[in-house]
C-alpha cells in the first residue's frame, strides 16, 4: 500500500466532513442516553415548534419528540448504512478479485452475473425486494446490499487486472505461494485504497436508498429512521414545516460529510493524486 504523502488534515473539506460525521456518530451512539426510552412515545403537546423548551426540534402531530426521533433514527440509519457497506464490500471484493485474477471463463461468468444486477434500476429492485419480503432490519440491509455490490466488484476486478501481471505478483507465484495467499496477501492490500474511497461514497448512497424506502412507507415500523420522519412530515409540510425539514437536513449533512470524507480519502490514499502534490 502506497504511503500517503499529503496529510489528511490538509484537506479542509474532508476535515469538516469528518467532524460532522463524528458528531453524527456520537449522537447515534449516545441516543439512548440523550433521549432515554422509546422515541415513539408521545411525550409532549402535539405540534410544538422547534426550540420549544425541552424539545429542541419540536414535536410531531402525536406529540412525539422530533429530536429523539432524529437521534434514534441516526442509530438505525447508520447501522443499516454500515452493515450494507460491509456486506457489499465483502461480496463485491470477493467476486471482483476472483474474476480479475483468474480471467477467462471465470471472469466472463462473474461479470455477466454482475451485469445482471447492474442492468436493473437499483432503487426499484430494492423497493420490490422489500415489498415482497416483510420489511425487517435484516431484509432491508440485504435488499440494499444486493443492489450495491456490483460497483465494488467491477472496481476491484479492474484494479486486480492491472496488478495481476506485475512483477511482484509473478514473483509470488514463482515462489510457490497459494492462490489464496497471493490474492489476500499481495493483491488485495494494493486494491484497498480505491475500495475505501468507493465504500465511503457507497455509504452515502445507502443512506439515500434507505431513506427512500422509508419515505415511501415501506420501511420497518419498529424503528424510527430519517426517511420515515421525512416521509411522514412531508404531508404536513404546510402546517409543520420542521417535521420534514429537519430530517431532510440530517440526511443532507450526513451524505454531504460522507462525500467530503470520501473525496478527502481519495486525495489522501490515491498515489496518482498525491504524486502531483500541493493540494489544498
Amino acid at each position, binding site marked *: 500500500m502506497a504511503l500517503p504523502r499529503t496529510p489528511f488534515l490538509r484537506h479542509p473539506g474532508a476535515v469538516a466532513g469528518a467532524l460532522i460525521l463524528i458528531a453524527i456518530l456520537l449522537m447515534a451512539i449516545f441516543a439512548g442516553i440523550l433521549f432515554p426510552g422509546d422515541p*415513539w412515545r*408521545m411525550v409532549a403537546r402535539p405540534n410544538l415548534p422547534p426550540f420549544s423548551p425541552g424539545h429542541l426540534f419540536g414535536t410531531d402531530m402525536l406529540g412525539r419528540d422530533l429530536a429523539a426521533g432524529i437521534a434514534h433514527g441516526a442509530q438505525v440509519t447508520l447501522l443499516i448504512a454500515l452493515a450494507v457497506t460491509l456486506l457489499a464490500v465483502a461480496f463485491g471484493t470477493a467476486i471482483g478479485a476472483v474474476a480479475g485474477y483468474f480471467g477467462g471463463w471465470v471472469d466472463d461468468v462473474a461479470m455477466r452475473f454482475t451485469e445482471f444486477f447492474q442492468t436493473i434500476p437499483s432503487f426499484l429492485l430494492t423497493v420490490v425486494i422489500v415489498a415482497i419480503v416483510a*420489511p425487517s432490519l435484516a431484509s432491508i440491509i440485504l435488499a440494499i446490499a444486493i443492489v450495491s455490490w456490483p460497483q465494488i466488484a467491477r472496481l476491484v476486478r479492474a484494479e486486480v487486472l492491472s496488478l495481476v501481471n506485475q512483477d511482484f505478483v509473478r514473483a509470488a507465484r514463482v515462489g510457490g505461494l497459494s492462490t489464496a495467499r497471493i490474492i489476500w496477501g499481495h493483491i488485495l492490500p494494493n486494491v484497498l485504497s480505491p475500495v475505501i474511497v468507493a465504500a465511503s461514497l457507497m455509504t452515502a448512497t445507502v443512506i439515500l436508498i434507505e431513506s427512500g424506502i422509508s419515505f415511501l412507507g*415501506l420501511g420497518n*415500523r419498529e424503528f424510527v429512521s430519517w426517511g420515515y420522519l421525512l416521509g411522514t412530515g*412531508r*404531508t404536513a409540510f*404546510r402546517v409543520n414545516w420542521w417535521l420534514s425539514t429537519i430530517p431532510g437536513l440530517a440526511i443532507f449533512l450526513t451524505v454531504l460529510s460522507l462525500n467530503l470524507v470520501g473525496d478527502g480519502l481519495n486525495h489522501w490514499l490515491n498515489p496518482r493524486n498525491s504524486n502531483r502534490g500541493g493540494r489544498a
Partner: protein
Amino acid sequence: MISRLLRTIMLSLAATLLTLTGLAAQEAGGTLNLIVQPEPPTVNIGVNRLGPTTYVGNKIYESLLTYSADLKPLPRLAQSWSISDDGLVYTFNLRRDVKWHDGQPFTAKDVVFSFQKFLPALQARSRLNLAEVKGIATPDDHTVVFTLKAPYPAFIYVHNTAVLPAHLYEGVSDFRTAEANSKFIGTGPFKFAEWKKGSFIHLVRNPDYWDAGKPHLNDIFFHVIPDANSRAIAFETGQVDVLRAGDVENFDITRLAGLDGVQLTEAGWEFLQPVGYIHLNNRHKPLDDARVRRAIAHAIDRQFIIDTIFGGFGHETNGPLSRLSRFKDTSVETKYEFDLAKANAILDEAGLKPDANGVRFELQFVPLPYGELWQREAEYVREALASVGIKVNIVATDVPGWFKRLTTFDYDLAENFVYTTPDPAIGISYAYTTLEGDNAGTTGGNVHGYSNPEVDRLLADAAHENDFDKRKALYSQAQKIISADVPLIWTHDIVFPTLYRTKVHNLIATGLGTDENFADVWLAK
C-alpha cells in the same frame, strides 16, 4: 388588416353575447373544477361503488330515488311511489320524459334490467336486495311494482343504485366485461365527454335533461392530482373549487378553511353515515375473550384520536350505529371511557399476566393504507396498548394486501371505516351476523368473526319488522348486546368535512352530499 377588423367584430360580438346571457340567467353557465382522488378504474356506478366512482358516476347515471338530509326519499327517476300497508308491495311511477344520453327513451324495462340482472351480477349488496324480492311486475312502460317475500322496511333505502340502459346490453351475457360498460350512457344532468387518464375526467351539460332548465353548469372537470400537497395548492390557487375529505389530510383542512372565500361544511354524509373501526379478530386468542376486547377499548383514548389525529372532526361512539341513525340508542350502550388502570385490572383478571418484559401478549395490526392519518392512528394505538402490556406489531401493507388480510381473518387488529347507511338492515346487519367460513372473494362482511345467536336473531327480526317502534326496540336490544360484547373498537363517528369556494352554490343539496348529481349546483360570477 381585414383579419384584425374581423377579430374586433368577433370579440365585441362575443362580449355582447356574454353580457346578454349574464343578464338572462345569473345562475347558468360556468365550469366546476373538482378533484377525484384516487383516479377510479371506471365511472360506471353499475360496475363498482367505490368512493371516486360514485362521485363522478352519479352525475352521469341516476337512480329511482335520492334522499334528503333527514333521510326522506325524494323523487328522481321515480316521480312518485307508494308502499302497501303490509310493507310488501312497492310501486314506483317513473318519469315519462326521460331520455338516455344516446337519445333512446327510458322505461320500466331499464329499471327491471338493472335491479334484477345487471347489479346483482356485479354487486354483493344488490344480490342481498334481490333476495328480499318475490317478484317484479311492469304493468306499463312507466310503472314498476316490487313484491317482497316479507316486510323489509330498508327496501326504500336501496334505490340510490344506478339504473343502466337495458338496450345497450341486449344479447350480452357477461355484464362484467360488457363493452357498453365504458360507454357511460346515463340519464343524468351531465354527459361523459372525455377521460384523459392521469389528468382529468370531463363531463358536459346534458341539454336534453328531463328537469328543464337544469343543470346550471356548462361542464365539470374532475382533476386527477396524485399528491396531497399539490391538491391543497390546487385549491388554494383556485384551480379547483371543492375539496372533499380525503383529498387533503385533516390538519390541512383546518388551515384551508381559514382562507378567504372558503366555506367548510360537515353536511352531506347523512346517507352514508361513516364510522371508524379498529377490527378485532374475534377468532384469534385472546381476542375471543370479551373481557380482553373491553380492556382494549378502555386502553385507547378515543378522544385523543378525534382531537389530535383527525383534527377535531368526529364524535365519540360506543356502539355500531352512527349518531345520524334513527335507530341509535346511546342509553343502552356500554361506555368505554379511557382508563388504563381499569384496562390493566381486566387483563389481570382474564389471567393474562405480563412476562418479565411487561408484555402480556402480542398482536399484529394491519393499518388502513388510505393516507397519513390512519398511519398515525395505528402508531398511537401501538403506544396506547403498549402501556397496558400489549405488544402491537404494525404490518405495513397496500390496499389489496389490507383487504385480503381482512377478508381471510389474517390479522389481529385492523383499521377500517364503514358506511353504516340509513338503515341497519343494509348497513350493519351483515357485519354482526354469524359467518361460516371466511369472507374471501366478497366485498367484506363480518370480518371480525363475531358470533352471538341472540344478536343473529334480533338483527334478522328487526330487518323484517314493519312496525317502526317495534323495530327500534329490537335494534336497541341488539345495540345493547353488541356494545357490551364490543366485537370491534368503534374509534369515532366520522365527520368528513367538505371545503368549497363560496362562489359554488347548492353544493350539498341532499343527504348524499357530493355524491349527488349536481343538477342544482351553480356558480356565482
